[in-house]
């Protein structure tokens, strides 16, 4: 875009009235950007600087905190809490994969098979958002309750034996295990996966399927060579929209998990609100943010940003 503007002006030669419009409109982009910028400065940049400051303080609740460039807080936090970080990313990754596995067929069916019921299906996908995040997560406590129907069935089918072998459940229980946390995360973030997937699938011209069919591709090959590649932008944005908030989540782990399933978000919450060790909490937040940024940029580089933008 930027490269085009000067060319356009240059093409106009020396005529004044051709040069005029860009000059007049020059402030418009800034005006349009202003509200967003102000918002970001007030609610993102300033808090982040304050947090950054906090993370480098030392002291205690009684004596008060002092700014001392104490970088080793980061190192100590990482050493103490790396299991929670590993768990965070492990659970988030598992939930993202689950979302993709459940969400892709769902989005595909809505985009290509639902016909005039598309709108209704999309509303149903978003419907859970009409109730509070907390209530929905609490509901899963009931669903996965010991001796509940779901767990009974899973036990009868010996499903829990398999998950127990994988270390996802313990004994006959599902509640208070990693599996419960992953289920909660999957459930809560599924719409963030389905909607971008739907958007990119719905854009695909059905005539491309016909062309592939005509060129000897059976339905399976058509999916592999045409539909799936064309839906990749949706896959990339869906996984990002799921993975990023899931790895910072603490509600699911707190309500559906046990002390052994704590995620980074739970540690941060505890440090801030219970232990009141503000520097450690702030340092943990920064570590989480940094790790997410690193992972996401590696992922985007691999998946190719071209289609994303």
């Amino acid at each position: 875009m930027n490269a085009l503007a000067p060319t356009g002006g240059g093409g106009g030669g020396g005529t004044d009235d051709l040069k005029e419009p860009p000059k007049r409109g020059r402030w418009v982009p800034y005006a349009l950007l202003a509200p967003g910028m102000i918002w970001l400065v007030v609610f993102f940049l300033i808090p982040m600087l304050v947090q950054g400051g906090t993370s480098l303080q030392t002291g205690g609740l009684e004596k008060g905190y002092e700014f001392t460039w104490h970088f080793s807080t980061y190192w100590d936090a990482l050493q103490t809490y790396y299991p929670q970080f590993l768990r965070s990313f492990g659970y988030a990754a598992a939930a993202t994969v689950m979302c993709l596995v459940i969400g892709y067929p769902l989005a595909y069916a809505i985009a290509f098979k639902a016909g005039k019921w598309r709108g209704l299906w999309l509303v149903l996908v978003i419907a859970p958002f009409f109730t509070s995040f907390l209530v929905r997560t609490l509901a899963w406590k009931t669903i996965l309750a010991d001796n509940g129907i779901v767990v009974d069935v899973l036990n009868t089918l010996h499903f829990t034996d398999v998950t127990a072998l994988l270390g996802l459940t313990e004994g006959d229980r599902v509640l208070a295990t990693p599996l419960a946390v992953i289920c909660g995360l999957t459930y809560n973030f599924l719409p963030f996966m389905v909607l971008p997937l739907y958007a990119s699938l719905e854009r695909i011209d059905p005539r491309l399927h016909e062309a592939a069919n005509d060129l000897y591709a059976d339905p399976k090959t058509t999916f592999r060579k045409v539909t799936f590649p064309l839906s990749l932008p949706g896959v990339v944005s869906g996984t990002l929209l799921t993975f990023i908030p899931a790895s910072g989540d603490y509600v699911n782990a707190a309500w559906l998990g046990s002390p052994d399933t704590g995620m980074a978000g739970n540690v941060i919450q505890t440090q801030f609100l219970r232990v009141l060790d503000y520097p450690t909490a702030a340092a943990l937040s920064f570590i989480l943010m940094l790790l997410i940024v690193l992972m996401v940029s590696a992922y985007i580089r691999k998946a190719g940003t071209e289609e994303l933008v």
Partner: protein
Amino acid sequence: MSEQQRAGASGDVNLVGLSKSFGSNTVVQPTDLTIPAGSFFAVLGASGCGKTTTLRMIAGLEEPTTGQVLIGGQDVTGLPPYKRPVNTVFQNYALFPHLSVAENVAFGLRRKGRKDVDGPVKEMLELVELGHLGGRKPAQLSGGQQQRVAVARALINHPQVLLLDEPLGALDLKLRRQMQLELKRIQTEVGITFVHVTHDQEEAMTMADTIAVMNGGVVEQLGSPADLYESPRTKFVANFLGQSNLLDTRITGTSGGYLLMDVHGTRMALPVDRTAAQGDQVVMGIRPEKIAIQHASAADSNGNRNRIDGGVIVDSSFIGVSTQYTVRMPWAQEITVFEQNMERDHRLVPGAPVVLHWNPDHGFGLAPEPATASAAVKA
């Protein structure tokens, strides 16, 4: 079946009672059609007459409401498109946007398990003059270039039957002529059956061995280009392929293989075997270039040619190789005449009284429209 027999029949396309309805709207009426293997078959017709729908049924992309499609004698009606030995050049190209031009062209070969696709793809792209653009994405091509990629993508598979849905519509005249020659050359060389849908009658006439003229979901007439032009059998064909003058007549008798008729008081003749109608009402058609025009004062007796006196030129336009006259008949009908510019008579200007005459063997007879309302109004 011997090898030779099979090869000979492998590209035959037979449509048996094939029809298609969308809801209560029948867009292709039951059609029986045989397209011989290795022929260049053109389907010509106005927009919306069911050409694309017919092609889609042959390709397997549309399920026929009734009837069957046979390719090389084998009933393929129940086969999905990817199992039919047919490729299509789509009217809207339908190129894969995520694949490069070269990969688009290679798509069919790869599906058939070919590994060494680079050579054929390069050759094919060169053939459509896109050798240098193989690495681009379709979105980075012009409309005409995309169209040529679509042709290349289908042609490279050497299918038994190639369906082309207005494959040259987006090209400029020069490139269009060039691609026409190229397609025709490939078709003759490879011996593929081409079914070529087009709006452009000139394209159909120059390329095809056989033309089917469709109108309202019905094949009105089938034949060689010359056949269709010289002996159209319906008004639609007479006016869709070139121009025709149509005169309402009343049959008065026959004599020596000719129908004798009365045309608004003038006696005329028409060969019986060039008349596609029975009954005492026949519409006589005559092509504008078959009519001779003379100034009334210069007209001599024209032997046994069909002749109309008392015409008046209302318009003349010089087109270079010929001059086009519009002549008003005594009964107020206007007749178009094309006259080669050899010896121009300078008295032939608007307002001049003229005589028109033509060889009776050049006329053709059509059935009047079922509803003769228009004829009644004119008479």
